[in-house]
């Protein structure tokens, strides 16, 4: 038995491909919904959904303004799973759509499986202390899915492409927008990661970490306080249940204590190596190889030996 109808809605075409590829095997019919004009739709056709609807946006248009027309489209089915990528905008639209479909939203879902014609959603609760498996008790279910949970597949391109019916709502007035200038990292896809924690004493000392990253070809991520409290690295760089979840070949944690919240973001790494001054730090229960020592001695020595 499979799910009758699944909608995949994404404001990111890479995520759209992954989600469509992943759910195609579980559903009779997959309808993709994207934001932009016909050119965006043509680009999105590679996702391989059975049907593709596009929501044209004007210069100030926000995908959230399409909650009404999208709900009308979904309601034609009488029952469906509506799956989003896990972006901030998608979470906003998902919540609005949930109200129109009279259902709640499950976010940051990290595993989706099909069992006896129903979708089972898995997500972390209590800051990573437990995983909850849930299913919707209503005809409609709405969820946002974390990136990287499906293996990429290539499907034949969608040919049934149409604009969505109905007009967007007026929405909130945008008076300015600026692109973020932070250097992009792709921690999710990184094969090698350095993970900086509160053991780092000053922002300037990131230079030493970056030097090591360059020597071994790694991306630099961090624990939550380094990004949020100290603001030494962009928020997009912090790993944890509420941040990025990585799965590199190896990760070296430097001055990371190892709270449950953070471990949840790095424990899919094949090998975990940890350096921390505190012998009792919980990170040492979660690593393959650990050095109890000072990162300010060990990192410069590593740079020298590996250069």
């Amino acid at each position: 038995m499979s799910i009758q109808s699944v909608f995949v809605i994404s404001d990111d075409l890479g995520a759209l491909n992954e989600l469509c590829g992943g759910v195609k095997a579980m559903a009779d019919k997959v309808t993709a919904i994207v934001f932009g004009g016909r050119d965006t739709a043509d680009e999105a056709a590679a996702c391989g959904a059975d049907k593709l609807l596009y929501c044209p946006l004007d210069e100030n248009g926000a995908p959230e303004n399409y909650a009404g027309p999208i709900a009308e489209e979904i309601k034609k089915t009488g029952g469906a799973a509506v799956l989003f990528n896990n972006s901030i905008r998608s979470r906003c639209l998902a919540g609005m759509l949930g109200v129109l479909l009279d259902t709640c939203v499950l976010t940051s879902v990290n595993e989706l499986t099909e069992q006896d014609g129903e979708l089972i959603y898995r997500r972390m609760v209590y800051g990573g202390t437990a995983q909850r498996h849930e299913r919707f008790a209503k005809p409609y279910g709405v969820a946002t899915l974390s990136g990287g949970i499906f293996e990429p597949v290539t499907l034949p391109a969608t040919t049934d492409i149409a604009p969505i019916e109905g007009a967007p709502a007026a929405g909130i007035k945008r008076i300015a927008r600026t692109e973020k200038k932070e250097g992009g990292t792709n921690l999710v896809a990184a094969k090698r990661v350095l993970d900086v924690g509160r053991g780092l004493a000053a922002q300037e000392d990131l230079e030493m970490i970056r030097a090591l990253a360059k020597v071994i070809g790694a991306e630099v991520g961090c624990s939550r306080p380094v990004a949020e409290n100290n603001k030494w690295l962009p928020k997009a760089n912090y790993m944890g249940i509420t941040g990025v979840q990585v799965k590199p070949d190896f990760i070296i944690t430097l001055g990371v204590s190892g709270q449950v919240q953070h471990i949840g973001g790095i424990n899919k790494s094949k090998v975990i190596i940890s350096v921390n001054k505190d012998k009792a730090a919980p990170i040492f229960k979660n690593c393959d190889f650990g050095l109890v020592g000072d990162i300010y001695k060990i990192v410069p020595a590593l740079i020298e030996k590996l250069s």
Partner: protein
Amino acid sequence: MKIIVCCKIVPNEEEITVQGDRKLDLSAASWKIGQYDLNALESGKQLAAATGGTMTALSVGGPSALDASKIRKDVLSRGPDDLKLVIDGTRDFSDSLQTAKALAGALKTIGDYDVVLCGMGSSDLYLQEVGIQTGALLGLPVLNNVTDIQPAGDGLLRVERTLENEVEVMEVTLPAVLSVSSEINIPSVPAMREIMKAGKKPVEVLGEADGADANLTTLSELAPEQQDRRQHIIEGDGEEAVEALVQFLKKECL
């Protein structure tokens, strides 16, 4: 400006223990204000000060979470003038729409407000949807991941929202519901005089939650399987220890 800040009282996750069968034991966990709701309380306090306004805290939950005077005082020591509660032991409020319906019902009862602030997500379930769904139920403008709020004249706020790759500045017509990012501020620690005053502030119980069924069925809740890590630990940061690490890296990783 009349500000309402929603906050959830949650079990302290650091005091949850995992049993042998990977099930959770919450019996020893004390109640605390959700970590991300502290940012909403701080934003409310700052906005109330900037506009000469008032601030009400609103919480929905079961009696075990909300009956204790200690937690009520904790909320009230962080800026609100008063606290309103919806106490309902018949629902577990573990889905976003059920909680949003209870909050929307309470907001209708309260009636008069300009802005409702929520945290980024509750620190137990972290669905990040309750603020959005509450606003949508009330037909109000909603924004998530708000990183700055400034008064902008009569019935308007200038709101900064930070997305993955861009920062938007929006002009929001009030009333509205905003979920603030945990980046928006660093919550202040209540001063002794605030703690002393908290016990004298009014607390009103609004009655039971608006009727709403659960939208989800929970099939299981288990701690993640412990990954077998080798835990090969060496003490020291001298030449020998670093060399051991280099050898490990060369053999297994590089």
